[in-house]
């Protein structure tokens, strides 16, 4: 049943993460603050023929630790990541094993691409052996919504169950959409976030062909260098982050630990180009302004911006311009970091991972750095927290996510407490 009297406020009571710099929040956060690089030579497939031969892979993850043997072998990696991150988040939330509550708790975990590894492998089987050789699990374990579907089955969560797909803003849109679902009372809680496992032959080929990825193969540790003058494309990465969103009154009543409150969700479309951002950053400006308006805060209240910051020439330049347009002179006073410098670009998971980073930054009072800042670009002139983490007291933090298709998404999260 829907929540008849939603408080209209939505808090985060649990979180889980699977990333190239650590599985589990504690390890992930420690590595973020230490400026740990997660990029290295690709090991998941043979890339000797590829122009890009580096990626940020998740190294400390075994699907068998989270799924039974049969399922661990079958599901696509993006589903295994979602299962693990969700289990961590529900444990972190001490989420009650209560039948009625699980009727009112939904799942919304997005993936930008879905089960591309499975798709790629099964396409080979089709070509080699004909249609009779294609697995019956291709369709269920390839479709991007199966992260939500699978987690709902595993965790017996029977509320709203759906998926959003908006390329590299998927994770942020998933959290924003789940936020609205809880805010209006269609669920008491939502398990939400993003997951992605794009490091496979067809994924690597496609992004290489789009000329979006770095080719700095000889120097993987310095390849992801958002805002640096010599940036030459993003580093592809994999991972997931999942949050438990909960109606504030419900969370208070059960005595849950609150990590942060979600207060603003802005979104817009560039209507400009399939892959390139609007050169003036118009869409990004409108997304940030919408989030600020919904949060009911002035630009000066934002204590940290986790940038989309992909390390492509175009994104970092136009995002900088957009932040300056949305914030005015205040922009120069706000620490802006791109944690993709360490994690790489996890595509549909990035928005969720980075929203989580904003919440941890508020709680810990630390802004993680943008590593690999060697030579500044005159067009990128904000405070990118170069190379070392910084102690900052933050009440509100903003995360930007932009995606192919011209999607712009901004989330604002707040320190728990009064408004």
């Amino acid at each position, binding site marked *: 049943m829907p929540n008849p009297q939603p408080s209209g406020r939505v808090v985060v009571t649990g979180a889980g993460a699977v990333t190239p710099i650590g599985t589990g929040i504690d390890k992930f956060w420690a590595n973020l603050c230490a400026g740990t690089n997660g990029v290295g030579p690709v090991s998941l497939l043979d890339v000797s023929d590829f122009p890009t031969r580096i990626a940020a892979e998740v190294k400390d993850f075994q699907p068998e630790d989270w799924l*039974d*043997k*049969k*399922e661990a*072998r*079958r599901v696509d990696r993006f589903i295994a990541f979602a299962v693990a991150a969700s289990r961590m988040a529900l444990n972190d939330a001490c989420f009650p094993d209560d039948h009625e509550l699980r009727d009112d708790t939904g799942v919304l975990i997005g993936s930008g691409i879905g089960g591309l590894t499975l798709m790629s492998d099964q396409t080979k089987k089709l070509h080699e052996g004909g249609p*009779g*050789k294609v*697995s*019956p*699990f291709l369709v*269920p374990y390839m479709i991007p919504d199966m992260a939500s579907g699978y987690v709902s089955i595993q965790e017996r969560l029977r509320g709203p169950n759906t998926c959003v797909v908006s390329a590299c803003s998927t994770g942020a849109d998933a959290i924003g959409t789940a936020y609205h679902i809880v805010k209006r009372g269609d669920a008491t809680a939502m398990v939400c976030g993003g997951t992605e496992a794009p490091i496979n032959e067809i994924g690597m080929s496609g992004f290489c062909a789009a000329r979006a990825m770095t080719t700095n193969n000889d120097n993987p540790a310095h390849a992801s260098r958002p805002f640096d003058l010599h940036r030459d494309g993003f580093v592809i990465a994999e991972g997931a982050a999942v949050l438990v969103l909960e109606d504030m009154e419900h969370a208070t009543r059960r005595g849950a630990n609150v990590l942060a409150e979600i207060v603003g969700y802005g979104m817009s479309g560039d209507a400009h180009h399939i892959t390139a951002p609007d050169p003036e950053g118009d869409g990004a400006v409108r997304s940030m302004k919408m989030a600020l308006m919904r949060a009911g805060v002035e630009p000066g209240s934002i204590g940290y911006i986790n940038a989309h910051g992909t390390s492509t020439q175009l994104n970092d330049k136009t995002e900088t311009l957009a932040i300056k347009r949305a914030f005015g002179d205040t922009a120069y006073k706000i620490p802006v970091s791109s944690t993709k410098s360490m994690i790489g670009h996890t595509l549909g998971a990035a928005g969720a991972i980075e929203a989580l980073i904003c919440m941890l930054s508020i709680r810990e009072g630390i802004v993680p750095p943008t590593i690999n800042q060697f030579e500044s670009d005159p067009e990128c002139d904000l405070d990118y927290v170069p190379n070392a983490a910084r102690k900052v007291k933050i009440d509100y933090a903003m995360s930007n996510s932009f995606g192919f298709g011209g999607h712009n998404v901004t989330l604002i999260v707040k320190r728990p407490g009064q408004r």
Partner: protein
Amino acid sequence: MPLGCGGNKHMSATILERVTKVTCEELGVTESEVKPESRFIDDLGADSLDVVELVMALEEEFGIDIPDDDVNSLSTVGDTVTYIEKKS
């Protein structure tokens, strides 16, 4: 154990072993659970998708084709061993 159908006993044991191995891999069960009389769906927990995947794995293991019309008659491990003996 009516596995042989007059065939070579050593071959039968080998086919049973191979069917058991494939069944364990595909259904995530242990060898001790797989007996000739075990039913894939009722005893070993397979669903309809598992059965399709299992049949494909058996086709690959034994280099044979198992038409859909034949799949319904293969409800136990023993049925399957007998069927494969006839085909090979």
